[in-house]
């Protein structure tokens, strides 16, 4: 996957480049609009990350320009502004996404995956999800661990489904809130943790290998360990 990173802050650029490379992306980076344009025209990219506050031009103008020049790859917009500009909303409706700074790396990676998935032809939707001995029946909304039926509320099922779909990958609290509850909020209480504890109580019974792990300071991950 070729990724074009347009970010003027050298510190951010360097850690993003390192993390994205580690995540398997082939990263090219530009620090301003002009070199970004040159890079975008010289090579084919699967996805772009564009910071809105560039030294020579506004990130939105750059995206619109690239679009006019025939660059069709999805764009993840990085914004230091909290309230989202109408023009960003317009781009968001056009299939792109945005993320406000500061962000968790896990969230950035998740959004990149979503953007890439959106642009690839839809795969046959599976009706069953399986992670080790955990099995989810998406049609009947039922989950079982080692063949043992789990008594989950509808909400818990959605949460578990989300974790399973991202098995092996870290999900943050705000990702869970957005994907499971559809809210972009930042509670200063442990609401998400309580949901996870309860779910863990049902999924990781006594004597079973724990599947849902807490990564302190980052979020949660469902994986075998």
């Amino acid at each position: 996957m070729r990724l074009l990173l347009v970010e003027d802050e050298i510190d951010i650029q360097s850690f993003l480049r390192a993390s994205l490379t580690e995540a398997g992306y082939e990263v090219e980076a530009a620090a301003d609009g002009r070199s970004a344009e040159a890079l975008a025209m010289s090579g084919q990219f699967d996805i772009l990350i564009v910071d809105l506050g560039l030294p020579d031009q506004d990130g939105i103008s750059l995206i619109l320009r690239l679009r006019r020049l025939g660059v069709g790859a999805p764009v993840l917009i990085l914004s230091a502004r909290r309230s989202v500009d109408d023009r960003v909303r317009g781009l968001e409706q056009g299939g792109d996404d945005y993320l406000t700074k500061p962000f968790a790396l896990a969230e950035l990676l998740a959004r990149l995956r979503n953007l890439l998935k959106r642009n690839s032809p839809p795969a046959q939707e599976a009706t069953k999800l399986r992670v080790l001995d955990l099995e989810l029946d998406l049609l009947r909304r039922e989950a079982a661990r080692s063949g043992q039926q789990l008594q989950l509320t509808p909400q818990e099922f959605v949460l578990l489904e989300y974790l399973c779909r991202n098995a092996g990958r870290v999900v943050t609290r705000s990702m869970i809130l957005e994907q499971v509850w559809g809210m972009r909020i930042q509670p200063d209480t442990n609401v998400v943790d309580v949901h996870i504890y309860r779910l863990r109580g049902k999924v990781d019974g006594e004597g079973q290998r724990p599947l849902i792990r807490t990564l302190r300071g980052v979020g949660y991950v469902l994986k075998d360990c």
Partner: protein
Amino acid sequence: MSSKTAKPIVRSAAWRISLWATLAFACATMVVFILLHRFVADDIQRRSDAWLSGEVEVLGDVAERTPKDALYGRVVGEVAELAGKEVPNREPGSSNSNDSVFFLQTGSDGTMRLWVGAGDGHPNLKAIQAAHVLPERPTDLAVSGFSIPFRVAAIRVDDGSLIYLGLSERDELRVLRSLRLRFLLWWLLIVFFGFGIVFLTTRRMLGHVRRITEAAAGIGHSDLTARVPTTARRDEVAQLALTLNHMLDRIESSMHQLHTITDALAHDLRSPLTAIRGKLEMSLSAASERGPAESVVSAIEELDRLSDFLNKSLDVAEAKADALRLDRSSVDLDELLRAMIDLYGPSMSEKGVEIRIRSNGPLFIEADAALLHRMVANLFDNELKHLSSAGVVAIKLDFREGFAFLGFDDDGLGFETEVLAHLFERRIKGRESSGHGLGLAFVDAVARAHGGSISACNRAEGGARIEIILPGLSS
């Protein structure tokens, strides 16, 4: 146009202004006319009196000089008749003047000696004797058989007889009547025209004011790009529109400045925060092979709290300045609250707090869903932080008179009294509170950005109550 124009015209300011202006004008012209009328009437009277006095003197002279023979009656009669043809204010074209003037000579014993005029003169004589008409001084005289009184002058002749000359006031009254009639016609015409002109002008003028009002009312809390309509003229109303627009320019520019400052501040703080967080995360993943690095984890958590605080501060600052950018859509408050309860329920029950909702089903309002989520999350966070176990949070949602009422009651300790008055200001929090004192300020700001309001009090039965009022769907 808008519904405001549909109100009856008699209640408009233009109607009242033109009514009062016309009334004042009509009264003033009426007073002027009455004075003028009196002046004209006096003048006409003076003129006819002068004529009467002059003629009666001439007649007296003629009567004295004419020998008292058989021709006396004819000579004096002809002179009298001749005088009757030169009556002042005479209506041109009227042929018969006999009934407007009479000449009467009485002997010293009061009997009639000579009569020139309409009829036999007896009623006139009777009236003269009854009214004691004195010589040299013209007086009004009502004669039976004549509807209009006469003006009569008298003179005493040497032989003791009296000569009376009477002039009907008919012509005088006719002149005055025609004057009144003409005045009335013109007066009505002018008053009606004046009313029309004043009404149309003021309505036009006030129409500008109304359009300015409508435009100003349409300029929302967050949309400051609109301007009130201006006209090419340079009158007071145009001045008002220009002043309003200048004011809006200034507000927009300070708002823009505020946005620029907060954006710059946000950018300057968030970029290093992003870099630090990224580096910490990288060192965390590197450290995870050797076990969790406690200090890195707590650094990330502190950083997240810091950026959360930064976000909230900027949001509240923008909201307090009515600069929150709203992304409105139709939101079901009932559904939103239930989703929130679903999210917060486990945390609440973990703490032993029960949460109840009373609602009459779906309630749609035009609002920014993301802001409402954060608003309700703030309220729930507050309850979670401040309520002790076995507490109850009762949420009530209903719709009255176009407004959605959202009530949060709990049975905790309530607000501290010194905090209650400043509850929705920034950095205000209870002594025991661990938060940064932005939560309720933000809730207040969101409610107000939506054109709503918030109030808080301590319930009589104990516990706190917060009520949020949001305008319902405008349609």
